């Protein structure tokens, strides 16, 4: 790790004034250790409300999220900021809406001040959407060029991920994206292998496009890994269908599988039509069963369940997503995208018109009160760390958490979770990641031997704990923010 020099307290992106607590310390005190969970480096005092003053700037981001909102049409479960182009034309490469948007996006990137002079090489870039594969490769290339101009040469082993939908690319376009533009990882939005389910969700592709896309991706050279994305608990999805989807997913041979459980979001077509847990949506027990089936099938096929909804062959984790789960900073560009820079979370406008205005303001350097930025308070930071790390198989690193937020919080957290350790939803692990029995956990909780000596990690069990993650995280929140 490079030793940081104190950054001049210039306004970072987005330019809002920083609170005093971020004041840099003299050089001699500034050793920035990047632990696996970056937390404010100062120690949290032994009280639940009195958080310490963070005295060092947080590390610069080395991840970038780019939002490309275009879709052929809106899927019935989708509530993301997207722009539906309409299914009539099958060729969007010269669509002026795409060109205009990309120009705006480039302006945003250019107008952004880099975090500091010590920008580290960018390690991950993620093109999400929308359907990024609808955007012509040359435009994607221009985005990457602008990033290089702005943030310097990217890391040699940079991960460039792109979400691609079946039916939006042919061999040539894929080769261009991979070979010319430099995409290293593809996230293929298969969602289901059954035509009737795909129709039900309003997807623009069918089973035939799915099979074609899998073949294309598998025969492409130069991809480091690809992910096959599935959705479970779709309306009218049966156990047989889900079993078939999992089987076909495994035989497609991706290095990575994402399994998302359908969330009926407010304002979507599904929300209008259906009630969670009621037909044609599967009952809660059935949808839990789907989750368990995925976990079992994929583990049996050699995938690690490394995050609530992510599975991969060893070494094929999505590095970009790991940035989020480790609560590390990242840039975000484009409509509705979120960024997290130097302890400030910011979400860009979700409507094109307002986004355009935002870019103009950014260029003019007047990002005043209307900006939708929030400094993440220490308490919220602790909540974020818990919420995000518990999504992962690694779990919450108690030593690092204790360093940042203090011993008493860790103790209260263990107390609050004790019944769940007992029921097996939460697993206490030692330094060697061996599970600790409830008896020994209790000893440590009540005995005078200092906590943290043995219990090094707390994670949610797979699949039962993962299935209850909201409930369990809410319990932890009750401790962090009473």
């Amino acid at each position, binding site marked *: 790790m490079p030793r940081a020099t104190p950054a001049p307290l210039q306004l970072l992106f987005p330019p809002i004034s920083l609170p005093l607590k971020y004041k840099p310390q003299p050089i001699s005190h500034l050793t920035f250790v990047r632990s696996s969970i970056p937390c404010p480096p100062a120690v949290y005092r032994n009280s639940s409300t009195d958080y310490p003053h963070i005295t060092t700037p947080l590390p610069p981001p080395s991840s970038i999220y780019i939002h490309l909102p275009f879709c052929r049409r809106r899927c019935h479960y989708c509530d993301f900021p997207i722009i539906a182009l309409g299914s009539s034309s099958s060729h969007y490469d010269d669509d002026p809406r795409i060109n205009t948007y990309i120009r705006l996006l480039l302006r945003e990137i250019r107008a952004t001040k880099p975090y500091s002079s010590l920008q580290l090489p960018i390690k991950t870039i993620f093109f999400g959407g929308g359907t990024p594969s609808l955007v012509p490769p040359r435009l994607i290339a221009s985005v990457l060029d602008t990033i290089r101009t702005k943030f310097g040469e990217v890391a040699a082993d940079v991960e460039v991920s792109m979400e691609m939908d079946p039916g939006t690319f042919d061999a040539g376009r894929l080769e261009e994206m991979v070979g010319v533009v430099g995409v290293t990882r593809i996230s293929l939005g298969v969602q289901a292998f059954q035509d009737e389910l795909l129709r039900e969700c309003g997807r623009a592709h069918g089973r035939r496009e799915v099979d074609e896309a899998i073949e294309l991706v598998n025969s492409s050279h130069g991809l480091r890994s690809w992910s096959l994305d599935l959705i479970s608990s779709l309306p009218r999805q049966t156990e047989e269908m889900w079993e078939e989807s999992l089987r076909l997913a495994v035989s497609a041979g991706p290095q990575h599988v994402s*399994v998302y459980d359908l969330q009926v979001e407010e304002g979507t077509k599904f929300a209008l039509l259906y009630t969670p847990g009621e037909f044609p949506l599967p009952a*809660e027990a059935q949808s839990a069963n789907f989750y368990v089936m995925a976990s079992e099938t994929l583990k049996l096929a050699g995938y690690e369940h490394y995050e*609530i*909804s992510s599975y991969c062959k060893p070494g094929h984790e999505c590095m970009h997503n790991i940035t989020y789960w480790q609560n590390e900073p990242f840039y975000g560009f484009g409509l509705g995208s979120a960024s997290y820079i130097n302890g400030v979370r910011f979400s860009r406008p979700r409507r094109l018109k307002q986004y355009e205005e935002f870019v103009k303001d950014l260029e003019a350097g007047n990002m005043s009160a209307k900006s939708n930025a929030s400094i993440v308070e220490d308490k919220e930071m602790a909540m974020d760390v818990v919420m*995000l790390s518990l999504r992962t198989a690694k779990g919450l690193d108690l030593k690092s958490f204790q360093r940042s937020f203090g011993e008493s919080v860790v103790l209260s957290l263990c107390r609050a979770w004790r019944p769940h350790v007992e029921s097996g939803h939460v697993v206490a692990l030692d330094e060697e990641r061996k599970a600790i029995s409830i008896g020994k956990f209790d000893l440590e909780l009540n005995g005078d031997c200092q906590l943290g000596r043995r219990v090094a990690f707390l994670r949610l069990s797979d699949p039962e704990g993962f299935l*209850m993650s909201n*409930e369990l995280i809410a319990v932890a929140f009750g401790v962090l923010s009473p």
Partner: protein
Amino acid sequence: MRALYRSSRFVTSTLRPLLYESYRFGTLLPLIGGECSFCSHSREKSREGALDLSQYPPERIRNFSIIAHVDHGKSTLADRLLELTGTIKKGHGQPQYLDKLQVERERGITVKAQTATMFFRHKFQQHEATEKENAPNFLLNLIDTPGHVDFSYEVSRSLAACQGVLLVVDAAQGVQAQTVANFYLAFESNLAIIPVINKIDQPTADPDRVKAQLKSLFDLDPNHALLTSAKTGQGLEHVLPSVIDRIPAPPGKCDSPLRMLLLDSYYDEYKGVICHVAVVDGALCKGDKIASSATGHVYEVSDIGIMHPELTPTGVLLTGQVGYIVSGMRSTAEARVGDTLHQAKSTVLPLPGFKPAKHMVFSGLYPADGSDFDALNHAIERLICNDASVSVTKETSTALGMGFRCGFLGLLHMDVFHQRLEQEYGAKVLSTIPTVPYIFEYSDGSKVKVQNPAALASNPGKSVTACWEPSVIATIILPCEYVGPVITLCSERRGDQLEYSFIESQRVLMKYQLPLREIVVDFYNELKSITSGYASFDYEDAEYQKSDLVKLDILLNGQAVDAMATIVHNLKAQRVGRELVDKLKKFIDRQMFEISIQAAIGSRIIARETISAMRKNVLSKCYGGDVTRKRKLLEKQKEGKKRMKRVGSVDIPQEAFHELLKVSKE
């Protein structure tokens, strides 16, 4: 045949000369000077304010209450009288001016008696000609009282400060149950009764019918009834002259040492406790040192005055007057309603005071929404300064933590108390199932009075030899076509008919002895619905009756929840147990484990349900790093947990407790 018995008693006293007090007029006049020697600086003091109370010796004072059945127009009539005397401006302020509490305005009912002093000019007798032309020559104290049965305690206290009443009867509805009850309260206190038939503007008004009822039920002379419309103002001009002519002046002695009755008290953030008092004998000035007969404590009167209609300092209060004092009392433990206050230097024979309030229902009050005990404690302490009729003792529940066991005059009173705690003191409360006070007797001869079912051991180790429950005598007045269903209802509620009589050709008065438990919840609603609202109902407490009672426990995952225990009649235990269990099943959310809900009598399970474990609660996608949105979602979930009460390992939403209140109808 109680009503008849009472009526016959009434006949003997009905000829009490309504005007006789006024004939004592002349003999009292010379005493005014004497009174002033008792309170030498009263004149200067009174000059401070615009009001000189010394102009109003007892013979120029009338103290009266307005009493009636619910909604017959007491508060509206009070408005008109306050306007007529210029005490409030016409058309200013809200209707029912004296209903000041938010709960009164929201519910459109009076729950607290309110006093207002008015000044009125009246040519009284011929020899008044010497008076200055236009000066008001009478001081009138009006007390507006609640009509609802729960608050009849307020009525009886108010009557202690009065020599007469306006008995208001709705011209269309006629005499109703609380008319009867309130009539007897006034009658038994030997007060002059002026019947006022109100709402004569209504198309269905039938004053003659009401006059006939007044005659037959109360033996009140139909010619003495006043006919009014508090809405249109019709007939109002006769009200105050009748008050002056027909209600006696207060009988106190101006030259005796001060004796005053503490009528009511409330707490003011700035002034501390404000006491409403009726000066029975003697006089009181600002700065005087007074003592409480009950506690012996001495206080200095720092402010004194009348309610005109707001607090108006006068520097003095003289014999027969009703007003307020501020004396540095800090709590109701000091300001005891019914206490006699006197000059610290003298000793007096205390006034009779009031019967203690009879608490009909008890329930536990606990802090809700994660609020703390201290906040609730503070709120309750403040509110009981304004509502002395609640009894409060601390109690602890394993399910709900530290809280209070409160006794109320009835369920409406309980509701109003909750609402006031929340609206006026910002407290958040959770209440347990209301219960009536039972008595259990054991084989070893010991007896316990049970105000909290949880306190009754489920397996006491000694056998219960007898149990008793409180009963009431209920009066129901209804059109005769509804008699059948009402009799069925009363026998379902384990009632015994005591009386059945026609108050006129088509109207029936029934009296029943009923277990209090049976009428506490839901009886009145049921009665209203089976009689299309035409029945009225009132009750007074009666003696304890032997009964076959059992304690019903609610168990969650095998663990009894003390705050959910109830005592029920053996024959109804099965049904109540089933209903409680069903309600809980509906309101307890699924949790990470299976939950069993059981109702049990001792170790016998009489109803059972299970709530299956929650199977899934996960947000699988955390898209594009929008962490804030997800955090907020989970924070909401956490807030939801705060609104739960944890019993053992089971989280129970507060709504579940509220819902249980509704089941207890047996």
